[in-house]
């Protein structure tokens, strides 16, 4: 075949593809509406759970993150990461379904239409940004020079703002598209449509063109595949299937994964013979305890999950001294309302301090732990002592603890 003939062949195939795209139910309003609804649900769950995680880490005067139930953050943050990952195929399928609209001419037909299309820019760009940075973050891959947490947070707000505008623009269209009889969901339906009055979305009768039902089914299967191969990092029974997850919940020192490891300075301070655990602040009597003295206090054992903001979690058995016991020994009345700051050897780090509300600090299972699974904490888990308390993000379960400071309100 000559070059001219080959070019003609490619042009013919391109024309065939264009007509396929125009005729395919993959690109009609009903498909876009269904995918939009699915994406709206997953993004809403992802946004709300992300917002809860933000509020848990940055308490405000109007929202107090509760100490119970103990596994609440495990559920919300597991959902945050799982819905984010599951949204990747959903978003790709949705963008492909509406991609031909990018080239519509004229580009807008009214002021309202222009506004609608302009608001798609932050929606699409924000969505791609959130899914890319979120996925890279759970893999500990940072190919950028901005703060992940702050940027992810504010781009999420930007995307949600654009989503609100999009929902307002598409609510009527979506309802109509979903209420319209589905005559192209299957090949049989497509054939029936062809044989009917011929009005409405073009049929999908070629074996090369997926029906709407098939396209949506493959999209759901893709989301399911991503979920199945990653969610086991927090859903224990699925841990063996989590082959694409960045963590496996039973791999790590003492069978528990680790996020941050100690620097040489932290390691030296934590293993020093001069180590003292202090309780100070608004107390009757400051405490300064050696590790042996700390371990000799009345102990308490609790089964609590350690839950990372990156979506993995692991239930474990921790032994230590309750924060309440330590405060009582320092002369803090049980009736006092306090804030507690837990202080780490990670001087100068964002993780040097974490704070606990009165409710969190006085919880029966809020521990300064020194044992994990009946053995002294591994250095990577915070030896010689760490905070472990119910319903806290892992970044607030401060490791390599040297002191707690009590402040009475």
């Amino acid at each position, binding site marked *: 075949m000559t070059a001219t003939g080959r070019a003609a062949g490619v042009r013919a195939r391109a024309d065939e593809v264009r007509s396929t795209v125009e005729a395919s139910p993959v690109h009609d309003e009903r498909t876009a509406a269904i995918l939009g609804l699915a994406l709206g649900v997953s993004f809403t769950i992802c946004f709300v759970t992300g917002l809860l995680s933000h509020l848990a880490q940055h308490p405000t005067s109007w929202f107090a993150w509760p100490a119970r139930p103990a596994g609440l953050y495990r559920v919300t943050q597991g959902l945050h990461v799982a819905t984010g990952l599951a949204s990747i195929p959903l978003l790709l399928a949705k963008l492909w379904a509406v991609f031909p609209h990018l080239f519509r001419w004229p580009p807008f037909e009214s002021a309202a239409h222009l506004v609608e299309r302009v608001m798609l820019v932050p929606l699409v760009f924000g969505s791609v940004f959130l899914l890319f940075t979120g996925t890279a973050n759970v893999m500990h891959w940072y190919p950028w020079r901005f703060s992940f947490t702050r940027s992810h947070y504010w781009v999420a707000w930007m995307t949600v703002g654009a989503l609100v505008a999009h*929902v307002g623009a598409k609510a009527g269209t979506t309802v109509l598209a979903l209420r319209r009889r589905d005559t192209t969901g299957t090949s049989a339906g497509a054939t029936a449509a062809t044989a009917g009055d011929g009005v409405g979305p073009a049929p999908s009768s070629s074996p090369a063109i997926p029906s709407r039902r098939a396209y949506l089914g493959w999209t759901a299967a893709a989301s399911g595949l991503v979920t199945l191969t990653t969610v086991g990092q927090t859903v224990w029974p699925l841990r063996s299937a989590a082959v694409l997850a960045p963590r496996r919940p039973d791999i790590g020192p003492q069978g528990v994964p680790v996020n941050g490891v100690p620097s040489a300075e932290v390691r030296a301070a934590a293993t020093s013979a001069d180590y003292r655990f202090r309780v100070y602040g608004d107390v009757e009597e400051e405490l300064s305890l050696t590790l042996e003295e700390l371990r000799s206090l009345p102990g308490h054992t609790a089964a609590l999950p350690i839950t990372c903001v990156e979506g993995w979690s692991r239930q474990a058995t921790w032994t230590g001294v309750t924060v309440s016991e330590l405060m009582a020994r320092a002369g803090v009345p049980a009736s006092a309302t306090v804030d507690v700051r837990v202080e780490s050897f990670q001087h100068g780090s964002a993780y040097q301090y974490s704070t606990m509300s009165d409710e969190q600090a006085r919880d029966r299972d809020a521990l300064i732990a020194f044992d994990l699974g009946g053995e002294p904490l591994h250095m990577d888990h915070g030896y010689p002592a760490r905070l472990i308390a119910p319903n806290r993000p892992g970044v607030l379960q401060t490791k390599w603890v040297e002191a707690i400071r009590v402040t009475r309100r």
Partner: protein
Amino acid sequence: MSAGEAAAVPDGPPAAAEGPGGALFWISAVVGAAVVAYALRELWSVSSPVSRASLARFLIGGGLVHDALWAPLVAVVLVVTAQLLPVRSRLPVRVGLAFTALVLIVSWAQVRGYGVRANNPSLLPRDYGLVVAVLLAAIWAAVAVALVVAQRGGGGDR
């Protein structure tokens, strides 16, 4: 006629033909635009000049990569598969390619080992190259089965 049938709207002109408008649209647009503007202002205020440039690169670049590279690439794949494959083979192969792309997108950082830390073996603990190879083998085995079924279903028409 059942209630369900009565509620159904018969096939007709595209619902979007009327275009956006109305109170719901404008209220949503104003509220949404206000939230977008506030978020962009906060993004600007919490960023240094260096991080702003990086942020802009990823925020704008991600969308452009999709619209200018990824989606056109999908269209090219449709053309090429239409050029090279019999009609009945195209859909299984295209689905196989889509799943292959998805697995590579989701696993890219792990396979490349971008987040690996020598002092933290619990992070990225698997042989992700092997995992991806097995997943892709399973996907293409399923495609092969689908191709056999499709061929038995009726000819290799082009």
